[in-house]
């Protein structure tokens, strides 16, 4: 950073320089002190004021610092220094878009600072301002055209804006420079990456002849043959040379014969290709799907026999895909049964496979019976206990399911997979404390799931707390996950700099893709849905409280108030229970991550606050799409009442389409209810933009009647939902909470009050405490015995 020019004498000027050094050294306290001293001499020097602003920012006066920096800029628009400082504050705030604007002003106002230009170009990549990046990269290149990295960054910037011809020309110059640079010869892996990138570039430019030429001439420079043949395949398919694409796919299969993806590519290039020439279990297993009748029976028996002789417990995985074809099920079952009378290990596998078979066709009781028989036969095989746990889970016996997984875990304490499974089942049985203990066994000392961004764990904990209506801790878990996703995006910042130096531009492009779609991930969608639901419950609770407060109290209402206070007392007790036993983490850590949710709740005091945060999640969620309809639906349905309450007709239309796109056999009834809610809202809508809405308006009664004609009501839940639908049609209120997951919840907690979704004590507390003390005693005996050894 260069010093200020105007109105400072020599002494002041060197003091100014010293201040800039303090900023670089991050000595903000001393910096602020000294700046204030200098300001006493030159109160009107806005560049010194700028310095004060950034020192204030770093001394925990963030808002004031930003304001002051802004003021300094407007008082002195021509000062590159002021702009630069202003940008630095924005950058520290991670407001990169504003930071870039400021830095560009600083550059325009004449600051000759190549470091600043590089930083700005980096931020432009981060904000996906590819045009701006290309301009700046050009500027940097013209200044320092002897550096290879500047050429690479320039090529990449031209690639991003589609100026392929310029990129190709620049590649020639870069290649020459690389050849000339004898002192730092390019490494083999770097050359490999650069050449692969050039092929990719030519394909992206649709210059297929050049790509073809590249593929031939670069072959010797390339070491990553998988990437090479993948590009080759891609190119030949684009050229319509399917025969050559087949050859590429064959090369890929030589390298990775167990990768199903490449068989698919092969088939795509030549649908007539007979995959059976590949004699491995993957292909043979997949090909079974294409056979029928006696031919299938014969091939299936031939396929499974080696598994029974060599005993590979992975067989079920290879044939699971066949369960989509109902006519094959009996053949499969009979084939398994035929091994029940062979040797002991054959009998074991037969029992295990039959248990899996019945699980797969949803006969959980039968599955359990078979797996119990298998366990009696061979009690040392941990896979059996996992199958048992899965079936128990489906029967909603969560305690027993936990006990089964824990048994598996104990059989092999070194197995991380079993430990993780046990944690998941512990959380399903509402045991947060125990899950934390189990997790700790596989974490290094001092680390914790929050620093490690263990989203699966946080999501499980959050779900559990939400199930128990323990809202603060639940919301915190979801909020932390949301922050992880933001951090993930921020972490890209370093990768651009790395990639232009190491030529890993193809990976950089892949990362752009992954990051731009980061919210369309299973965990994020689940989290956002649950967060909105949790905030909804918080809102209801708030309304409940307000209702009582606002009125003058009649005796009846006094009673209500008493009840409410009692509930709050219960909640307080629950909180104590969780802060004492619910967390194995230190108080500092609990504070740091706000695990009790106290800080988060303090920001959610009014309905407006809650809606604002719901919107923060809704805005992202509405644009996501994951390839599992069930997961999508569970999240999207949370948006329905939110957008209706917010009176957002266009978003409701978008949501309606999303619900329809994610309809499945499992969710169709619940899905219908939400569609009904939206259509009813749209029917009653009379505001602006009506022409876009009208298309979706329809006769609600007919829509509903048509739907029920085509579905079968099977369960209690289905009946409840149908009742909800009737209430919607009659405009009557109903409790939206009581469906799917929530109904499970009620079955699990028969004593829970159905009318009030809040403050439920877990009736399984005694059992949970037993599990914890068992775990603790086994831990202590183990550690003693280890010490003895």
């Amino acid at each position, binding site marked *: 950073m260069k010093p200020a020019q105007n109105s400072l004498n020599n002494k002041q000027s060197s003091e100014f320089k010293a201040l800039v050094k303090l900023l670089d050294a991050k000595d903000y306290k001393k910096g602020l002190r000294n700046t204030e001293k200098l300001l006493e001499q030159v109160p009107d020097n806005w560049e010194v004021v700028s310095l004060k602003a950034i020192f204030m920012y770093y001394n925990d006066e963030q808002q004031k610092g930003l304001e002051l920096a802004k003021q300094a800029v407007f008082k002195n628009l021509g000062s590159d220094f002021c702009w630069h400082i202003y940008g630095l504050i924005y950058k520290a705030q991670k407001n990169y878009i504003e930071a870039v604007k400021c830095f560009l002003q600083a550059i325009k106002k004449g600051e000759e600072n190549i470091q600043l230009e590089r930083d700005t170009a980096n931020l432009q990549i981060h904000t996906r301002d590819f045009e701006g990046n290309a301009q700046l990269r050009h500027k940097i290149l013209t200044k320092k055209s002897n550096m290879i990295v500047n050429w690479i960054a320039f090529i990449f910037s031209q690639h991003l804006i589609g100026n392929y011809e310029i990129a190709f020309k620049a590649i020639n110059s870069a290649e020459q420079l690389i050849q000339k640079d004898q002192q730092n010869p390019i490494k083999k892996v770097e050359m490999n990456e650069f050449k692969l990138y050039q092929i990719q570039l030519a394909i992206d430019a649709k210059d297929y002849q050049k790509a073809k030429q590249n593929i031939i001439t670069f072959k010797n420079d390339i070491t990553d043959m998988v990437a090479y043949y993948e590009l080759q395949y891609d190119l030949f398919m684009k050229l319509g040379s399917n025969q050559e694409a087949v050859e590429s796919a064959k090369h890929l299969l030589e390298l990775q014969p167990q990768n199903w993806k490449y068989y698919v590519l092969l088939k795509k290039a030549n649908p007539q290709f007979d995959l059976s020439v590949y004699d491995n279990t993957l292909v043979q297993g997949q090909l079974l799907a294409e056979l029928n009748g006696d031919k299938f029976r014969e091939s299936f028996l031939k396929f499974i026999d080696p598994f029974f002789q060599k005993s590979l417990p992975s067989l079920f995985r290879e044939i699971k895909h066949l369960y989509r074809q109902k006519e094959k099920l009996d053949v499969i079952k009979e084939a398994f049964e035929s091994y029940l009378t062979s040797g002991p290990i054959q009998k*074991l596998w037969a029992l295990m496979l039959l248990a899996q078979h019945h699980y797969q066709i949803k006969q959980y009781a039968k599955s359990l019976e078979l797996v119990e028989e298998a366990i009696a*036969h061979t009690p*040392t095989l941990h896979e059996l206990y996992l199958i048992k746990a899965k079936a128990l889970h489906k029967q909603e016996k969560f305690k027993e399911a936990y006990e089964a997984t824990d048994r598996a875990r104990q*059989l092999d304490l070194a197995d991380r997979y079993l430990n993780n499974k046990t944690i998941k089942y512990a959380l399903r049985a509402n045991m947060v404390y125990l899950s934390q203990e189990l997790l700790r066994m596989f974490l290094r000392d001092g680390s914790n799931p929050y620093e490690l961004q263990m989203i699966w764990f946080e999501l499980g904990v959050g779900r559990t707390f939400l199930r128990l209506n323990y809202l603060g801790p639940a919301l915190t878990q979801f909020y932390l996950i949301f922050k992880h996703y933001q951090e993930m995006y921020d972490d890209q910042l370093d990768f651009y700099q790395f990639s232009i130096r190491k030529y890993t531009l193809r990976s950089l492009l892949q990362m752009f893709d992954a990051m731009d779609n980061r919210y369309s991930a299973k965990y994020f969608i689940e989290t956002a849905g649950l967060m909105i639901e949790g905030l909804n419950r918080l809102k209801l609770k708030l309304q409940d409280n307000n209702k009582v407060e606002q009125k003058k109290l009649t005796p009846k209402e006094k009673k209500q108030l008493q009840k409410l206070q009692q509930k709050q007392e219960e909640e307080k007790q629950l909180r104590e229970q969780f802060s004492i036993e619910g967390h194995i983490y230190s108080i500092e850590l609990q504070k740091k991550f706000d695990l009790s949710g106290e800080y988060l709740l303090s920001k959610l005091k009014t309905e407006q606050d809650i809606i604002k945060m719901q919107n923060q999640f809704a805005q992202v969620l509405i644009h996501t799409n994951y390839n599992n309809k069930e997961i999508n639906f569970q999240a999207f349905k949370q948006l329905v009442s939110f957008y209706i309450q917010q009176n957002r007709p266009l978003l409701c239309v978008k949501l309606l389409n999303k619900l329809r796109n994610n309809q499945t056999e499992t969710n169709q009834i619940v899905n219908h209810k939400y569609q009904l809610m939206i259509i009813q809202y749209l029917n009653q809508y009379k505001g602006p933009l009506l022409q876009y809405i009208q298309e979706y308006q329809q006769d609600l009664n007919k829509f509903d009647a048509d739907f029920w004609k085509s579905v079968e009501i099977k369960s209690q839940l289905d009946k409840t939902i149908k009742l909800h639908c009737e209430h919607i049609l009659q405009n009557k209120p109903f409790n939206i909470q009581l469906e799917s997951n929530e109904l499970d919840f009620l079955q699990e907690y028969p004593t829970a009050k159905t009318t009030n979704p809040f403050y439920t004590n877990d009736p399984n507390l005694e059992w949970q405490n037993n599990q914890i003390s068992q775990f603790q005693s086994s831990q202590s005996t183990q550690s003693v015995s280890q010490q*003895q050894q």
Partner: protein
Amino acid sequence: MEQKPKLTFGDINFKNLEQFKVITQKTLPVTYSENFYYKILTYTDFSALGYYNDIAVGAITARIEDKDGKKTAYIMTFGVLDAYRRFGFGTQLLNELINRIRSHQEIRTIYLHMWVSNEIGFQFYCKHGFEKTTYKKNYYTDIDPPHCYILTKRLYPDVDPPIPYTEEDAEKEQEIAQQ
């Protein structure tokens, strides 16, 4: 006919102790304390789990004792899961133990307690060169009849002299000890 199934052997350690526990509980009529299982971990040299197709189906544990100044190996537990009997797994486990013991020349005998009613067990041990060396009355407290034999195998019968047969009464010994 397929090949005779073969066992592979692995250590008993605290990570897989539960497997040993399960096998012992399923195969032996005696109930052991938790403490016993953790103690097993101190005798790992002469203990093994037997794996068939990577599944633990049997286990043998033994410790070395001093008997009248001579070293002898004592089999503490030995069992194969029901479903996996008659495949020669017991023989393989026992041979594994004998091989390990043979590398210690100073150990001359292996002995064990066997419940008097265990006919099948007796036939098995006979086949492997064990002899009845003591009839011990009232040895067990929780099974009926409570008597047992001590079976002993001389590892080097060509060199070492035969062992005379004796009778003992555990109850009487205890009474004497109490007096």
